């Protein structure tokens, strides 16, 4: 492709983007003659250049489009169909340009359809009732003849066009009719479309075509300030190939590295002669770096221009009224980063328009204005670029996300109960997660937000979601200023140094064996207790299989005095254990070899000041590698292990140990506890002899609360919160001791009122507290033994019988609880349950054969199997046997939703939903 053509393609694409955005603005504000003038000029330029380069198809289209636009100029009403038609034309032109760029010549084809439609528009009498106030009619009369003149044959030669234009320009040139044009300007001063960004694009146009006639009419129309601004900037800017800038940046990066090396040497040797020139070099390098980075900066608004068009099209397609507000469009951002976030931005805006914003009538019913607003915001804050997309739509329903996350097996009930809303919201950024009920043309295929996240994380950025139910969603992206240079923490593990990007580091802590901050093991996994929160921690040396002196954490050693880098990535906080923290350094991130790129624990490599190469750790990858190990282990289990798992770990569960009213340890299965909270004693009030506290906007009763004697109102009262149907109940405890995973062997013979029995943990007797009163309303009777029931529970353990019965009753089901399969066989015929919930842990293979028996019978109700942990192999086996679903014993939510599915009449099975 020759250079001229290449320039044309680049330039025209830029112009078209601007036209797109301007037209959308113009449609809303048709009285703004400055906008119209700008559009006209751009389209005219395209037309002129096409004629010059011999591109008849493009020229023809642009010409027809120009006619319609000139009709607007002449006072024709600006109607939505007309704007749509022009946008369509622009799309067609874009298509041709893309082909031109690829092949170097115009593609074959015919545009008569569009041209005819455009001509019809252009020839429409101007007297049609205007949707909007027409501009002053002064120029209307005068340009009429001109219009019919324009509608010539298709093969206009360039000189003809120019002549025609000249004539028009002559007529429109400043003269007696000028005042009406100037008049609207002060009324609606057009937000100057990022003049700095635009100026360089305009410069070559003026040079190349030297179209004085265009300017002649453009300048008097445009507000004075804009015109002069454009002129001054255009003279000072030069068009530079992006490749040149990138090369320059690479060289500066190298220079920075070399300078760092020199500084390192100078530190070691105390040479005064050396020092002052080095200081100067250092200074100049820093300035050069700033300068070169500046050349790579572009206002973020250039990525936004497309969005206004997208929003306009979406609002037509969806039948919603959407307004796009932009602020901070002038915020400058590295060109490379800009490219990387273009797609995520598009995704987010589409998401907001499609899912976020409600239909107008829905909005009005909710007391909101009929038109929805999407707000794009950008700003530079403390060394990062913050880009925000917010809408005032319905927001994300946290409860639905919870349910979906549980069903997709992304988390467990116990985990979710401990999560903040922000953390729960993050599930929507997991691959394949979409809460949209229907997949639409625009979005909802579950590939939206996870794409956004992966794009943003790829460039070292962070995505955050904030949802206010019913009031909208706010997505914030935090990006580094540039990709090339990053600040990093240099750490050491097992004798090797690594860099951790500063952007993901939240804080550094040192642990002590019995101090405030300490590392404890839970189920063989290390956790960090930090300010009363438990964070997962991973040891870099373990993750990377590095040999270390003195044993690793995974083997259960409680090492003290560890250094932990607490990272905050994607709403998750976790710790990375290192041996020492050396210093921070500005590093030039170099891509890692193609042969290592598949390793998610590294994001790149760099050369330090002393010349050594070190690897850059990707904190999210490090954390993920640990979690992946966990799942891989489950998948690799053999059939024999499977059976063993089913038997041995039968009743292993997480128990919360605490003390309340006495020195004895008490325990409650963690799965039944909604949350752990602490309240100041001062906040706990006494109403009618009952202790209550304001919790999530409501009053929550607290059982077992002992008012504190006068002093120390600052002290906090730990409270276990239980969810009961639609309200919460608190239970005051003296002290929360620990969470342990144990295999429960409950001795129910010691059951006393308020407990279901006792068990031995670490050699100590622990009372298991009866929570059935807390999770189920009182006063429900078990149905008689021959009455029809909804749910039949077959469970041999008294402990679980005591738990499930109130749970299901609480949900309003009629239930029958049976201890054995033999008893169940008799009872099924009589009580005709709609669903059977059974413990699969039966002697031998009896559990599964019972399921098969029922499945073959055909008339039997669906069976939901209970296992201690629903691994993928068990799920598979259960599926083969004919189970409806498989649920973990402590997965309360899973059980309830599965039972709900059956009784709610849904017939689809819920495979893989539990665990």
């Amino acid at each position, binding site marked *: 492709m020759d250079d001229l053509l290449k320039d044309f393609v680049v330039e025209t694409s830029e112009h078209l983007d601007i036209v797109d955005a301007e037209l959308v603005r113009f449609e809303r504000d048709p009285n703004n003659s400055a906008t119209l003038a700008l559009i006209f000029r751009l389209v005219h330029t395209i037309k002129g250049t096409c004629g010059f380069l011999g591109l008849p198809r493009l020229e023809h289209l642009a010409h027809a489009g120009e006619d319609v636009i000139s009709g607007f100029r002449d006072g024709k009403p600006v109607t939505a169909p007309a704007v749509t038609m022009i946008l369509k034309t622009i799309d067609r032109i874009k298509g041709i340009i893309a082909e031109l760029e690829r092949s170097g010549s115009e593609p074959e084809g015919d545009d008569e359809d569009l041209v005819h439609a455009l001509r019809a528009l252009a020839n429409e009498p101007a007297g049609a009732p205007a949707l909007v106030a027409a501009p002053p009619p002064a120029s209307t009369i005068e340009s009429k003849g001109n219009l019919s003149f324009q509608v010539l044959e298709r093969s206009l030669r360039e000189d003809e066009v120019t002549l025609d234009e000249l004539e028009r320009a002559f007529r429109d040139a400043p003269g007696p009719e000028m005042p009406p044009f100037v008049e609207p300007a002060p009324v609606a001063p057009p937000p100057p479309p990022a003049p700095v960004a635009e100026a360089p694009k305009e410069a070559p146009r003026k040079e190349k075509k030297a179209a004085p006639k265009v300017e002649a009419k453009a300048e008097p129309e445009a507000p004075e300030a804009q015109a002069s601004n454009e002129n001054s900037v255009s003279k000072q800017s030069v068009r530079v190939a992006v490749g040149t800038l990138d090369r320059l940046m690479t060289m500066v990066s190298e220079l920075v590295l070399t300078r760092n090396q020199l500084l390192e040497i100078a530190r070691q040797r105390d040479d005064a002669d050396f020092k002052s020139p080095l200081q100067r070099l250092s200074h100049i390098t820093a300035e050069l770096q700033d300068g070169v980075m500046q050349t790579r900066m572009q206002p973020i608004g250039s990525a936004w221009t497309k969005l206004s068009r997208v929003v306009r099209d979406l609002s037509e397609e969806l039948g919603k009224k959407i307004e796009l507000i932009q602020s901070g469009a002038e915020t400058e951002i590295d060109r490379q980063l800009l490219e990387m976030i273009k797609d995520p931005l598009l995704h987010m805006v589409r998401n907001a328009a499609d899912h976020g914003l409600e239909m107008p009538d829905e909005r009005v019913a909710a007391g909101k204005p009929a038109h929805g607003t999407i707000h794009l915001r950008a700003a530079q804050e403390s060394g990062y670029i913050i880009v925000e997309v917010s809408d005032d739509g319905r927001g994300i329903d946290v409860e639905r996300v919870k349910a979906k996350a549980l069903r997709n097996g992304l988390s467990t009930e116990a985990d979710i109960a401990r999560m903040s809303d922000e953390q729960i919201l993050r599930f929507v950024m997991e691959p394949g997660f979409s809460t949209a009920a229907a997949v639409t043309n625009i979005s909802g295929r579950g590939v939206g937000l996870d794409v956004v996240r992966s794009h943003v994380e790829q460039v070292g950025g962070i995505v955050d979601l904030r949802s206010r139910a019913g009031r909208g969603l706010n997505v914030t992206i935090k990006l580094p200023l540039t990709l090339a240079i990053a600040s990093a923490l240099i750490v050491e593990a097992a004798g090797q140094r690594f860099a951790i990007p500063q952007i993901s580091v939240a804080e550094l802590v040192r642990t002590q064996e019995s101090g405030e901050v300490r590392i404890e093991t839970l189920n063989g996994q290390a956790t960090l207790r930090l300010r009363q929160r438990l964070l997962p921690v991973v040891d870099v040396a373990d993750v990377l299989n590095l040999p270390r002196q003195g044993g690793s954490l995974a083997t259960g050693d409680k090492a003290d005095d560890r250094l932990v880098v607490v990272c905050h990535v994607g709403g998750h906080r976790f710790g990375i254990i290192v041996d020492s923290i050396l210093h921070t350094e500005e590093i030039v991130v170099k891509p890692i070899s193609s042969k290592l790129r598949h*390793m998610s624990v590294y994001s790149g490599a760099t*050369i330090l000041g002393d*010349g050594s190469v070190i690897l850059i750790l990707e904190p999210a990858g490090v954390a993920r590698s640990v979690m992946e190990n966990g799942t891989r282990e489950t998948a690799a289990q053999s059939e024999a292990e499977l059976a063993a798992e089913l038997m041995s770990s039968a009743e292993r569960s997480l128990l919360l140990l605490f003390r309340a009213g006495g020195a004895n340890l008490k325990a409650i299965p963690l799965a039944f506890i909604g949350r752990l909270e602490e309240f100041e004693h001062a906040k706990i009030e006494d109403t009618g002899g009952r202790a209550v506290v304001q919790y999530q906007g409501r009053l929550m009763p607290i059982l077992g609360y002992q008012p504190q004697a006068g002093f120390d109102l600052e002290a906090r009262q730990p409270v276990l919160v239980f969810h009961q149907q639609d309200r919460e109940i608190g239970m005051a405890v003296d002290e929360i001791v620990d969470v342990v995973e144990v295999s429960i062997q409950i001795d129910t013979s010691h059951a006393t009122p308020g407990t279901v029995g006792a068990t031995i943990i670490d050699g100590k007797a622990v009372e298991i507290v009866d929570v059935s009163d807390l999770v189920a309303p009182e006063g429900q009777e078990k149905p008689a033994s021959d009455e029809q029931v909804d749910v039949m529970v077959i469970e041999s353990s008294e402990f679980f019988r005591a738990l499930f019965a109130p749970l299901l009753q609480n949900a309003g089901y009629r239930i029958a609880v049976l201890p054995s399969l033999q008893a169940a066989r008799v009872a099924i015929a009589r009580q005709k349950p709609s669903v059977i919930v059974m413990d699969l842990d039966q002697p031998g293979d009896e559990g599964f054969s019972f399921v098969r028996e029922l499945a073959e019978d055909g008339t039997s109700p669906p069976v939901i199997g209970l296992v201690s942990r629903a691994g993928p192999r068990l799920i598979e086996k259960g599926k083969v046997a004919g189970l409806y679903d498989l649920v973990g014993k402590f997965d309360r939510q899973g059980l309830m939703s599965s039972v709900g599915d059956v009784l709610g009449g849904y017939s689809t099975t819920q495979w893989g939903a539990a665990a």
Partner: protein
Amino acid sequence: MSAEQRMRRDMSIVDEIQLVSVRIEGQLIGLPITSVRDVFSITAMTPVPKADRAVAGLVNLRGHIVTILDLGYLLNSRRTERQSEQEPMAVGVEWLGEVFGLVVDEIGDVLSLSGDSSEPMPANMGTNWARFTRRVHKLERELMIEIDLHALLETMSLQAA
């Protein structure tokens, strides 16, 4: 014309070829000079934990990060035992715009050979050898194996790490 003769004729068309001779565990190996960029000694190498064992580490070669591959491991599927007296040497090769360093025991002369002196690999060589080599050159004193660098770097099964 027998198959062997035909092959010889085909190879002689290739004409002269220049090979950099290196030695790995006693075996003489030839690398086509067209893909060799430079030869350097490995000073400070950073190991890459958890990477494929064929990746020996990363070095700083005049401000560029170069991935060092263990040629012996690639060919023999076991880590090369090396005498610790001297710094290991590496041959820098360029492949798809990226520079890799191949660790070798010894670097020798550049030899100009013609196709006439060569034969296809004998069938009883190990699979890796058969896959990554082009042919055997019969030198006066010993045999030299000509490596197909493209095949070596392309089929390197590092993704399985």
